[in-house]
């Protein structure tokens, strides 16, 4: 981030004025965002130090920041927090991976085979409407205390947006595109690979973005239910021990982890679906 800003400052000197303006506006945005965070932390600090919010309900902002700093150092030096961080990371990524593979496969099968779609689509919708969290205790019984139950929870939560978006994407081909392709005598598989799949990609990636976030939710729920590792487990344990600063620190780490993983999907989408931003429409 700082590198980016420094570069933009440099650009201001040498590039055209519009580049310079863009750099200035980036700096402005960064200043605004840092200020907003500082105000938030300041209000938090004042409310907790003054006792308006008692310390057994909310730790002070400075306590949380200190603990967070220690935790980050621990992660970087490969301490116990690193194990928790890494455990959750692997659970989320596995959950995401299986959600993507299963979701795209199921979505594609449902949209290609109309009989299967008619037979089971209502149950997919019902499954999507079911609070899958309710299955968490059962999932632990079925898949044990280890990572498997967390990954299964993650997939249970994250797979549906991928299924639904894959179906929507494969059905999104424009009527004019279909006329053109048919007038050129395309076969069914040419239509699928040359037009329908590229058309579906932006939709699928939108589903994958959601899936990454949902996968993190599912993994943490899994850790709440059972096990002895992971940032969700740390959060739960710290709350039980009334070490609220530890709990908050772990939540911030989860949030940062989720944010970065989500960014990865967004960046991959921009690379692969490069035409989406420019062409405006979800094509």
């Amino acid at each position, binding site marked *: 981030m700082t590198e980016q800003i420094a570069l933009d400052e440099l650009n201001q000197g040498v590039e055209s004025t519009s580049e310079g303006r863009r750099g200035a506006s980036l700096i402005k945005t960064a200043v605004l965002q840092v200020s907003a965070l500082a105000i938030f932390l300041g209000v938090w600090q004042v409310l907790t130090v003054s006792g308006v919010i008692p310390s057994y309900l909310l730790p002070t902002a400075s306590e949380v920041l200190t603990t967070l700093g220690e935790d980050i150092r621990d992660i970087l030096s490969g301490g116990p927090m690193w194990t928790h961080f890494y455990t959750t990371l692997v659970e989320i990524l596995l959950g995401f991976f299986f959600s993507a593979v299963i979701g795209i496969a199921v979505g594609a099968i449902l949209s290609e085979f109309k009989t299967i779609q008619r037979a089971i689509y209502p149950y997919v919708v019902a499954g999507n409407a079911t609070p899958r969290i309710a299955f968490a205790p059962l999932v632990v019984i079925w898949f044990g205390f280890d990572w498997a139950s967390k990954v299964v929870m993650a997939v249970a939560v994250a797979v549906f947006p991928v299924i639904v978006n894959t179906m929507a994407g494969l059905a999104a081909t*424009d009527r*004019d*595109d279909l*006329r*053109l*392709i*048919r*007038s*050129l*005598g*395309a*076969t069914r598989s*040419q239509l699928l690979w*040359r*037009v329908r799949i*590229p058309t579906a990609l932006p939709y699928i990636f939108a589903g994958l973005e959601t899936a990454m976030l949902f996968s993190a939710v599912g993994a943490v729920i899994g850790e709440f239910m059972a096990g002895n590792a992971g940032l969700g487990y740390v959060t739960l344990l710290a709350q039980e021990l009334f070490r609220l600063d530890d709990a908050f620190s772990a939540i911030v780490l989860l949030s940062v982890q989720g944010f970065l993983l989500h960014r990865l999907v967004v960046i991959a989408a921009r690379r692969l679906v*490069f*035409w989406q931003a*420019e*062409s*405006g429409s979800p*094509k």
Partner: protein
Amino acid sequence: MEVTIRDLRKVYSSRGGGEVVALEGVTAEISSGEFVTLVGPSGCGKSTLLDILAGLTPETSGSVMFGNGVDGDRSARVGLVFQKPVLLPWRTALQNVFLPAQLGTEPPTKTDDSLESRARELLDLVGLAAFTEKYPWELSGGMQQRVSIARALLLEAEVMCMDEPFAALDEFTREQMHIELLSIWDRQGFTGVFVTHNIFESAFLSDRVLVMTPRPGRVVAEVAIDLPRPRHKDMIGTAGFTENVRRIRDAMSEHWTG
């Protein structure tokens, strides 16, 4: 390649169970290399007629014959240009023009290399030699439509069906496109079938205008345009041009009151 249309009828079944007659008794002969416009108000079946020519929808009865042969595979001989450019946004201009070579059950008779160089030539022909590697969103509306014309020409279509291809363009760009289309037509020698609801456009482009009226869609009159070729912008507004427009309009109002 000449096109012979005989007693063409097209009936759609509507949702309520009734029938809508989109085309009734349409008969027309289009000579090889001729430029013919189908002009008429909305609902007169001009687009349906074009779809039948292009093989996108089957006729209910009657026949369409290309050249002297029986009606066989139409897609190979007919190029299509739509109102929207219908370019695939993940393909460059060149890749979009090349698309027809990658579709169909039979491999193209020519090699990919020669078709790719033909795609380049066509982009050059429509004035986009410098834009081969650009994506559709980097091109203006007029440029996009030029790409779609080049695409329709890739497999050397002998009949070009154009469904209001310039309707979405602004007035200035449209005039420019008229001139360019006629010059491409002149050089490529295809048979042109152009659909529009714009009487001026039909008069400017055509050798002959087929006037259509709705409910049911019929060809009610034929107006031969007696303007010399090549056409140029200065002709618009001349007495001769206005006279041709008036004859199309009269033919229309004689059979249809809106």
